[in-house]
């Protein structure tokens, strides 16, 4: 399975949501990381044929996905960021309905639905109405519907949004389990969601892919160094104005700061190994002193 994005652009009036993206994806897990409004959802919607690009093409094994029409959708599983469900349907009814839309043969559909319900851990609530499920359960039902047709391309838009840490870990493990022999694209603005499962990470900002690569490649792409140092509490604001701070931890009368900087911020600062969160901050973060600082 190969997806190729060539000069992909989407404009909404004067606003360019996705700007001339060129990428190639094959089987594996891809993490799309970016702040809110970076253009991740627009990009994913184009990949799901929900939006037509203003210019550029998306090809699946060499064929334009919009021309492929239902042939492409047959290969696709999609979980949108916010998805509506039918409140009065039970989990099983809902999956049977989506299975019919996906063209799954009636002889296998019940078995497939049952298998997936078990896989996402919803067996106990299979006959419960969707409206009675917790947020995490609804997300799991969402991933089950996306998996019904055993898709070759699985696109998950912010799948962990609104989940508690426990549910997030479960969800991450589930995606990791489902990712074999298929192309999985997962968007998020939560670094830990993809840190352990993505083979390749794309950093997206203002509609463009800033960087792409494995975690190590991204860390190596940083031209600044990560430091940790203890500073007096009354000097924290000075540091925040001067440096990008990726973490702060209060201690007695002092604060442990994790700083991204070219220069050693203070004499006692120790150089430490960078993490993906540092990379995220390096590319997307701003200093407190910056104009319109987001962080």
């Amino acid at each position, binding site marked *: 399975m190969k997806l190729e994005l060539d000069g992909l652009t989407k404009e*909404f009036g004067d606003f360019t949501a996705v700007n001339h993206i060129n990428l190639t994806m094959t089987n594996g897990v891809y993490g799309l990381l970016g702040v809110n409004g970076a253009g991740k959802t627009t990009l994913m*919607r184009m990949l*799901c*044929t*929900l*939006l*037509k690009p203003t210019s550029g093409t998306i090809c699946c094994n060499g064929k334009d996905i919009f021309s492929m*029409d*239902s042939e492409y*959708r*047959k290969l*696709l599983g*999609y*979980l*949108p*960021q*916010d*998805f*509506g*469900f*039918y409140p*009065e*349907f039970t989990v099983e*009814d809902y999956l*049977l*309905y*989506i299975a*019919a*839309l*996906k*063209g799954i043969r*009636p002889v296998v559909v019940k078995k497939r639905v049952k298998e997936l319900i078990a896989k996402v851990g919803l067996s106990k609530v299979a006959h419960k109405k969707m409206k009675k499920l917790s947020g995490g359960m609804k997300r799991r039902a*969402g991933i089950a*519907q*996306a998996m019904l*047709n055993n898709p070759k391309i699985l696109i998950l838009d912010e799948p962990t949004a609104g989940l508690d840490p426990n549910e997030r870990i479960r969800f991450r493990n589930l995606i990791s389990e489902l990712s074999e022999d298929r192309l999985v694209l997962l968007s998020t603005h939560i670094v830990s969601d993809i840190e352990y499962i993505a083979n390749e990470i794309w950093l997206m900002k203002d509609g463009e892919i800033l960087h792409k690569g494995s975690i190590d490649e991204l860390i190596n792409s940083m031209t600044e160094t990560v430091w940790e140092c203890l500073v007096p509490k009354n000097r924290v604001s000075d540091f925040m104005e001067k440096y990008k701070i990726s973490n702060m931890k209060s201690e007695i009368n002092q604060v442990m700061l994790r700083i991204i900087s070219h220069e050693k911020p203070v004499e006692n600062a120790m150089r430490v190994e960078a993490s993906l969160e540092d990379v995220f901050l390096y590319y997307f973060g701003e200093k407190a002193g910056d104009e319109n600082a987001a962080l």
Partner: protein
Amino acid sequence: MRLFRLEIKRILKSRRTLILLAIALLLSVAMAYLPISFEGINRPNKDGTVTELNGLAAIKYKQDLYKTSAGEVTPDRIKSALETYQSCVREYGPVEEEGFPLAVYIEKIVPFRHLLMGLSEAFADPLTGIGADLMDIDPNDIDGAYYEKCAEHLQDVMRNEQRENETAQQKALEKYSELDTPFYLHSGISKDAFDYIELYILLLAILCVAIAAPTFAGEYQTGGDSILRTTKYGRKQLAITKILAAFTLFVVTFLVGITVHILILDAAFGTDCLKTSFQMRYSIINLPNINLGQLQIILAATGLLSVLATVSCTLFLSAKCKDTLTVLLISIVVLLMPLFAYVAMGATWLSTIFPSAGIGMQNNFLYQLADFNYLNIGGMSFWTPHVILLSAGIELFVFTFLAIHSYCRHQVA
């Protein structure tokens, strides 16, 4: 078929839909009860007292009275009814005055009232169209010339109403000449019963529009559409299935509702009166060549067509708009537009070409059948019931096609 079955199941699982369907069925009973409850008559007793009868008791009493006047409307019978009327007036004074004995009125006038009303109309003033005083009509003038007098009156009316359009006048006269005569009369069913069929259809249309409004827009609003349209059959097939399922639901609801409604009416008023010619219940010069039983079927069939055409317009709006409330508001405006247009401007193209043109109050299909409204274009004249039917039929297909097309082209913003 599996998708269709699941779509029906999905619709029927919605509590909102179930409530609206239950209201539709309850209304069919309530709206049939009302015209029955409106019936009333004073029955003179042998001891000189009067008993006021209402509802079913009044209907039963009237049925017994009307048996004597039931049959073909021949000039001889009309002449005889007129002679009886005139002799009563000569003996007791004008019918509408208090001194006129109730027992005589009930026994000799009431059973023939519809014959006499038609007679007054047939001998109306050619210029003003005002009905003739029954005392001024010479019974000998009726002999053999009653139906010719009716046709002459129609000619006068058409000359007044369609002064500029000879084609319309000609068409109306041609249509009238095709009527089966003599007319048949078996009084007993009230006009209210037919008005309430039309009113019930209006309420059904509102309920169906309310059910149809979220069909596509509801999915856009909740985001559920994003999942549906990324599936193999999530575009054209899904749109067609959703529309077919909605239509199936509305057809079944409409047929059940209208059948219950009409059965209640017919059980109360009896079926004998359904043989009455349209002209004997409305105007003697009306154009439809049907009896009241056929009228019930025609009102139900055209009502269904209009409801489906209106719903197809709502489905198109639902595929086009992003939220259910907008769809609902625009659909209600479209539904009521012919009603307002008719009140404001009378019978015009605007009040007849909307999909809901046959639904409403004065603009409804029944009133158009009982009227002489012709619309003219390029030397051609079209009777408004024909325009309403043709428009609804075309719009049903056009809006359904547009709904499918719009759904397929919709992009998730």
